[in-house]
């Protein structure tokens, strides 16, 4: 007589294990967010969001996070504007034009390796490259130092280009995946109508993949917003904008771009006990804003992906 096996124990262990893991992850996530809000809530005020940081030992005079916020936005825009056209073109090439062979596997492993390089290494590399005199137009020429003709190598433009390099493999991969999800039937249908390959890509494939592409861009933005090492090394350790003042005048725009500044991440480093400020509350206040930006970007990505699904319904 065969005895029926009971699955009660192993299935309840499985249940408990996966539920506990989930619970722990949710708790850690909530704990981080709640701690941040708890410590930083006092700092958040309109004044905090709308004034520039000031080097002062007095809390009242130390100002807010206006320029770090602007810096984060500026850097994200520069990085995305440089990275996305390259990434999209590369993804299109990989998906539609490349032939299987050594070259393709070389490109693919290059993309994979690039995505694994720590951002601080990318930053170090950028620093070596962009301090070369020929790249002085991106930052500034060092003057008044005997025997040096190097470029300064730190500016919004340099950091933006570096950010673009950092997110490139990530965005390429996500766009390649998106292009793969465009149904073959669309492509065949278009070609059967006598369309050229490029017409098919530009008029059929890309519009169908629009929401996926937007999601990829937003996730790439998230990586730029959260990065610290590249900002620290290639944007510099100054809290304020160091171009011609006031930095927000359109006439000083270029000067702002080729000079240094800060982002929320470096501001947090500065004001944390590890940096120079040692004002925990202010650091957590900036962290709240940073987390809010990242959550908003993720919501936007989910929302845009949702629009795409509705349309395909």
């Amino acid at each position, binding site marked *: 007589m065969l005895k029926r096996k009971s699955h009660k124990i192993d299935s309840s262990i499985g249940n408990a294990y996966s539920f506990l893991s989930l619970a722990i992850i949710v708790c850690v996530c909530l704990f981080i967010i709640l701690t941040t809000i708890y410590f930083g809530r006092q700092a958040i005020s309109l004044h905090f969001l709308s004034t520039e940081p000031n080097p002062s030992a007095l809390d009242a005079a130390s100002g807010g996070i206006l320029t770090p916020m602007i810096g984060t936005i500026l850097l994200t825009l520069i990085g995305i504007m440089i990275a996305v056209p390259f990434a999209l073109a590369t993804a299109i090439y990989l998906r539609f034009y490349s032939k299987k062979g050594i070259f393709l596997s070389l490109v693919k492993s290059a993309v994979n390796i690039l995505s694994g390089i720590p951002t601080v290494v990318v930053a170090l590399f950028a620093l070596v490259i962009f301090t070369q005199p020929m790249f002085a137009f991106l930052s500034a020429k060092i003057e008044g130092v005997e025997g040096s003709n190097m470029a300064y190598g730190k500016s919004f433009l340099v950091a933006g280009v570096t950010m673009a390099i950092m997110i490139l493999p990530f965005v390429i991969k996500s766009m390649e995946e998106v292009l793969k999800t465009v149904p073959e039937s669309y492509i*065949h*249908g278009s*070609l059967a*109508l*006598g369309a050229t390959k490029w017409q098919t890509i530009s*008029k059929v494939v890309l519009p169908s993949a629009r929401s996926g592409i937007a999601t990829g861009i937003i996730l790439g933005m998230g990586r730029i917003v959260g990065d610290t090492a590249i900002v620290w090394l290639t944007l510099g350790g100054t809290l304020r904008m160091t171009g011609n003042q006031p930095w927000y005048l359109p006439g000083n725009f270029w000067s702002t771009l080729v000079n240094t500044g800060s982002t929320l991440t470096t501001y947090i480093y500065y004001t944390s006990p590890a940096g120079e400020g040692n004002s925990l509350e202010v650091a957590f206040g900036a962290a709240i804003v940073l987390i809010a930006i990242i959550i908003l970007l993720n919501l936007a990505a989910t929302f845009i992906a949702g629009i795409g699904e509705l349309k395909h319904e």
Partner: protein
Amino acid sequence: MNKSMIEIQDVNVWYGEKQALYNNNLSIQENSIYAFIGPSGCGKTTLLRSINRLNDLIKSFRITGNIIIKGQPIYDLQKKADIEEMRRHIGMIFQQPNPLPTSIIKNMLLPINEHFQGDKVELENLVIEKLQQAAIYQEISSSLQKAALSLSGGQQQRLCIARALMLEPSILLFDEPCSALDPISTYKIEELLMELKQKHTIVIVTHNMEQARRISDYTAFFYEGKIIEQGTTLDMFMNPKSEMLEHYISGKF
């Protein structure tokens, strides 16, 4: 006797090492419906997709022999632009309706906008004319701005036919156009095909014996890459010469 529109001459096809078609010869007359029947994997879709060179997309695809359309051997065409121009004269409708995820009107204008210029009214009239030809205009006339994917499967398929008609092709290729549709939509498409053959030459791949019998003028029976029998549909179904076809049409496969 009508003029010959498509001549298939000694066509052999390989996918890599595997041969899919063996020495096929076929002559397809103008303004008729030619049905390809046979069990799955017998090569009928392969031959259909060779007629507009859509198989060129498959890297391992190799063909010998030629297919001659209106006197032009299409596998002699070398330039990409010539192949694309050739495809514009051959509409293709697929098994799964494939309207793009945009509005009905944009779907219709897609092939036109790329190749021609015209003013808005002219284009809109053309769209309406083709939608009427595809017997779908009445159902959707109120909402040409609606998403094409919100239509039913049968409507989507007729929209795809209308879209193919926009370039006024002389040949229409149908790859099992009704296999994803319900009987009523199937009936509508069959009626439409009978209508369309007045102006177009139609080749249809079908799994449905009854469909082939109902609508086609000629039929070719494929088995393992070879055309076993071909002729007028009436003749084929009334007096099958080979035992294989006899079994197939009586459902013993």
